[in-house]
């Protein structure tokens, strides 16, 4: 909502500059979003009067004007406007003025004649597009007056953001009340004196409320013999300064009073109302009305309408009807000032997609006690501006009248909540200035019985009053202290630890962290070739997605990482090493997952550290390290049939018997779908499972004191044999004396026969209790070789 500085000053005195006022209001909770000085473009332009005109000696289309701008000598100005005439009041751009077009006015010779300024058209002033002739000013404005002042544009507009709990601030008087709280100055409310005619309003109309639950109050006045016309300049200027369009004197008055009091009003053409009367009722299902915007609207039975004897004539609190609107022919007016239930207006507005100045206020709640002052104020202004007389009396149907709310306020509670040391009198003073009735409580010391004014429907509890005290006292004046209470005993969370450790490792391993939306496209499962019966396909769906790409909640992180790879590849970035750590949405739970992708080129890509293409063992190594980071050793890998992956290059990650994740080379068909021209490697692990198994309770193990002995062993086995099969046998044969087995070479080729391969291991023998002799080691090693031969048919390769 917009208000202006000068307009506000009609309702309260204050000395603040525009910026000060903006700051004060903001710190009171009435946030000023912007401060705009009107008329800045008109600086240097003054009102002048053309005293005399003489022909230009050298040009037919130009004349020489002697223009009085209130200085000692009249200025000679050369002018070519067709409408220039003697005694005309016009805007004069003086020497040095910069027009909104960017032109600076200089003293100049025009076809040989001196010119000391410029007479301006509206377009030249940036006021309108009218360039037909000079802007003609009303002849009573005194010469020399700055044009901005003459046009009422020497004002400042504040754009306010009013929070939903403060509908009382949606008016000039409402904002003035806030200034009153700040300054203590009294309000200057408009004085209203209505001279009524002899006709009793009850003889000419009636109001019936059939839906008192939706319409707590409806008041009306009738004004006869008005003459519809243009509003005076001051009124137009006021409305335009706050961004309200000008229509005619009657409608402009209702809008003006709306801005003043925050009370929406509506003027009906009295003679267009069937039986000249008002019925406030729910619409019949399917009933129709054409609203002021000339839209035909179909109504439902939960909507409140203002009807005449036969049909709806307005959508209550939202918009008037087209058929009963004020036209140039209107002579008698029925003026409505009413109060409607917020939820009903909100529902109607929402259903019909209509948002108006009226509905904006009724949705939030309007003071029912503003109905009569606003009605009277409008009636008086109409008579002043459009003539006519006001019928005697007001029809005021008020089924929703309620007693003012009373709240008990303990002043020590104020200090307890705020951490302040306010005196009871300070509290009393603040609330008094806000319009609250204050009475010392009979029940308790330093307590008050507070009466809430009708415009503050948001205040119903003691805490609401405490907030009022706080904001007027000033949040900045409340002390700044640190909490005194005990710090609760922290609970450690292993899953947080696990995530932290893994992330640290992955970053150290050169992977970049990616964060993706939780949303996905339902086709993402097909894109990664998930089996038809894969439970991951069972994703939660959004009812109101932004787009199909964002219509389900992801159950796996792998499609997101493939999307990231695709995005980067499309932008010629091919060193893809990304991981994401996030929750996914499966079976009503939100377990954490960690996933990573390697694709394209890894390495520095420089001389001495060339790019290399990642392979299966890069991704496997990363996963192995992740498991080690969680202090897990009891893991294994097992081939799977997952269609996402290359059938021969993937593995399930097992922890004991439990499958906790998967890794592998992405299937070529998936790569094709994601338009990746190179291989990609993915892993995804269940972080919950890792956290459950992880054990960070580290314990010292003695450093070996006896030397260890290493023996290399190269064996020839069937090509299909997994490299860990011999390792199991080596361990089971050597028992505790085998410290470690490390595979250091795999060979397939001419040196071994077809269908075979050679595996070379380094075995480290070690005893914790003695130094192993060569003889001990040889015996053990021979045993190992023998068992490998017996059980696997392994031949020693010499």
């Amino acid at each position, binding site marked *: 909502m917009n208000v202006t500085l000068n307009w506000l000053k009609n309702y309260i005195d204050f000395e603040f500059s525009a910026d000060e006022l903006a700051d004060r209001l903001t710190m009171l909770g009435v946030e000023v979003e912007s401060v705009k000085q009107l008329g800045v473009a008109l600086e240097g332009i003054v009102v002048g009067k053309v005293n005399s005109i003489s022909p230009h000696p050298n040009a037919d289309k130009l004349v020489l004007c002697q223009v009085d701008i209130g200085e000692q000598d009249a200025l000679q100005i050369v002018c070519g406007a067709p409408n220039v005439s003697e005694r005309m009041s016009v805007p004069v751009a003086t020497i040095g003025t910069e027009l909104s077009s960017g032109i600076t006015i200089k003293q100049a010779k025009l076809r040989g004649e001196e010119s000391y300024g410029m007479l301006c058209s509206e377009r030249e002033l940036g006021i309108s597009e009218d360039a037909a002739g000079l802007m003609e000013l009303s002849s009573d404005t005194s010469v020399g007056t700055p044009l901005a002042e003459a046009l009422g544009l020497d004002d400042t507009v504040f754009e306010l953001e009013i929070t939903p709990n403060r509908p009382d601030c949606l008016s000039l008087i409402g904002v003035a009340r806030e200034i009153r709280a700040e300054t203590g100055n009294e309000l200057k409310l408009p004085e209203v004196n209505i001279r009524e005619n002899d006709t009793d309003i009850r003889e000419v109309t009636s109001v019936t409320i059939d839906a008192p639950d939706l319409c707590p109050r409806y008041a009306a006045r009738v004004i006869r013999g008005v003459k519809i016309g243009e509003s005076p300049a001051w009124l137009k200027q006021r409305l335009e300064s706050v961004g309200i369009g000008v229509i005619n004197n009657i409608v402009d008055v209702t809008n003006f009073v709306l801005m003043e009091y925050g009370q929406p009003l509506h003027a009906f053409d009295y003679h267009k109302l069937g039986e000249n009367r008002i019925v406030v009722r729910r619409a019949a299902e399917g009933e129709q009305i054409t609203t002021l915007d000339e839209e035909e609207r179909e109504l439902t039975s939960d909507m409140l309408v203002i009807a005449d004897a036969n049909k709806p004539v307005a959508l209550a609190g939202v918009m008037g009807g087209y058929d009963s609107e004020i036209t140039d022919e209107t002579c008698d007016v029925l003026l409505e000032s009413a109060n409607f239930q917020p939820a009903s207006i909100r529902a109607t507005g929402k259903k019909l997609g209509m948002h108006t100045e009226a509905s904006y206020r009724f949705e939030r709640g309007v003071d029912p006690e503003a109905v009569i002052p606003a009605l009277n104020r409008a009636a008086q202004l109409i008579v002043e501006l459009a003539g006519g007389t006001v019928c005697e009396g007001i029809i005021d149907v008020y089924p929703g009248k309620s007693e003012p709310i009373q709240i008990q306020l303990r002043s020590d509670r104020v200090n307890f909540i705020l951490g302040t040391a306010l005196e009871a009198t300070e509290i009393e003073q603040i609330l008094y200035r806000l319009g609250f009735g204050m009475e010392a409580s009979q029940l308790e010391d330093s307590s008050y019985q507070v009466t809430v004014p009708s415009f503050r429907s948001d205040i119903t509890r003691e805490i609401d009053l405490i907030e009022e005290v706080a904001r007027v006292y000033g949040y900045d004046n409340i002390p700044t202290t640190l909490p005194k209470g005990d710090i609760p005993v922290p609970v450690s969370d292993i899953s947080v630890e696990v995530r932290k450790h893994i992330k640290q490792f992955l970053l150290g391993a050169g992977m*970049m962290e990616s964060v993706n939306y939780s949303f996905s496209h339902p086709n993402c499962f097909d894109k990664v070739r998930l089996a038809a019966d894969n439970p991951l396909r069972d994703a939660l769906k959004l009812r109101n997605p932004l787009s199909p790409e964002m219509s389900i909640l992801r159950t796996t992180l792998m499609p997101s990482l493939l999307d990231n790879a695709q995005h980067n590849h499309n932008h010629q970035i091919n060193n893809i090493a990304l991981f994401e750590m996030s929750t996914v949405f499966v079976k009503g739970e939100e377990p954490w997952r960690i996933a990573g992708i390697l694709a394209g080129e890894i390495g520095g890509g420089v001389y001495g550290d060339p790019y290399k293409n990642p392979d299966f063992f890069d991704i496997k190594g990363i996963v192995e390290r992740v498991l080690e980071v969680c202090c897990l050793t009891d893991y294994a890998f097992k081939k799977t049939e997952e269609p996402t992956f290359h059938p021969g290059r993937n593995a399930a990650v097992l922890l004991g018997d439990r499958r906790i994740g998967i890794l592998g080379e992405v299937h070529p068909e998936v790569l094709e779908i994601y338009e990746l021209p190179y291989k990609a490697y993915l892993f995804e692990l269940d972080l919950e499972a890792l956290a459950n198994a992880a054990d960070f309770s580290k314990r010292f193990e003695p450093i070996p004191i006896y030397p260890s002995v290493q023996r290399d062993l190269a064996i020839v086995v069937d090509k299909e044999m997994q490299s860990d099969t011999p390792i199991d046998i080596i361990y089971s044969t050597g028992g505790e004396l085998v410290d470690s087995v490390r595979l250091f070479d795999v060979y397939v080729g001419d040196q071994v026969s077809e269908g075979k391969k050679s595996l070379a291991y380094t075995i480290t023998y070690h005893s914790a209790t003695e130094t192993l002799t060569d003889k001990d080691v040889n015996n053990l090693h021979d045993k190992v070789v023998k068992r490998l031969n017996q059980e696997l048919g392994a031949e020693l390769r010499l």
Partner: protein
Amino acid sequence: MKAELEAIQATALEALKDVKTTDVLESLRIEYFGRRGKLTDVMKGMGQLSKEERPIIGKLANEVRASLTEAFEATKTALESQQQEQQLHAEAVDITLPGRKPAYGKAHPVMQTLERIEAIFTQMGFQVVTGPEVETEHYNFDALNTPSDHPARDLHDTFYLTDGHLLRTHTSPVQIRVMENQKPPVRIIVPGKAYRVDYDVSHTPMFHQVEGLLVDRHVTFSELKGVLVSFARQMFGDQTQMRFRPHFFPFTEPSAEADISCTVCRGKGCRSCGHTGWIEILGAGAVDPEVFRAVNYNPEEVTGFAFGMGVERIANLQFRIPDIRTFYENDLRFLQQF
């Protein structure tokens, strides 16, 4: 003989001067000290000397031998160090060739910011707690005192699932869940993802929030200010000013929005701060008594405060990314910048 020895010494010393390599030095050594060497030959001739002469010449011979040995050693050392020097010289590398940089990944900029926020509050005794992102209307709205016809509940604002649940619009429901399960004192922060139907340069449909909650027997608004000022100084620098403006949230009262002095102009006013010198960073307030009642806390026995901030917004105060949707494209050229 004496003359002979002296001549040998002189020629040997002269010859040494010209030696350039250890190989030449070795052959020269053999020439003098070898089995057929010049010096050896002279020594062999000692037997023919008279008894009187023998000790004198013997002494001289030893002196010559010792001095030559020393001269040979010195030459050897000199040659060796010269040679090493040459070798080192030959081994010089072009130090402008690229270093072999160990791989090094970077955390996502939003996560970096989130982690910093977490660290600051953890150090002030706040426990990090998380909760579900798929929520019920009860926890997301009702329990937080949001009216049933509040516009935030609209399909235009909140993502609903086909099963009737919704995606939490803030991390506040976790506060309710914690209070339902824990007696005061409560001192938690809740980091996590939240969702709203919004998609433009300054909004993403998924975003990150950190909310905080402190409930105890006597928690004041002044302590809310203290905690947040302390946070702001640690997050944005010691010089940071903070101001609190009255605002409205359904679940706090009194409510505030907090601004920090503009990080660009330091409060003088610039385009980033709309010429106000202030930048809004978070919402906060004393916990509304209705919220306490909803979790069976007695508002006469406990008080508290809550605050919430958008992580992307805070991250962007530093990074100044014109379109925050860039955060979630995961373009490596972008991620590498932080």
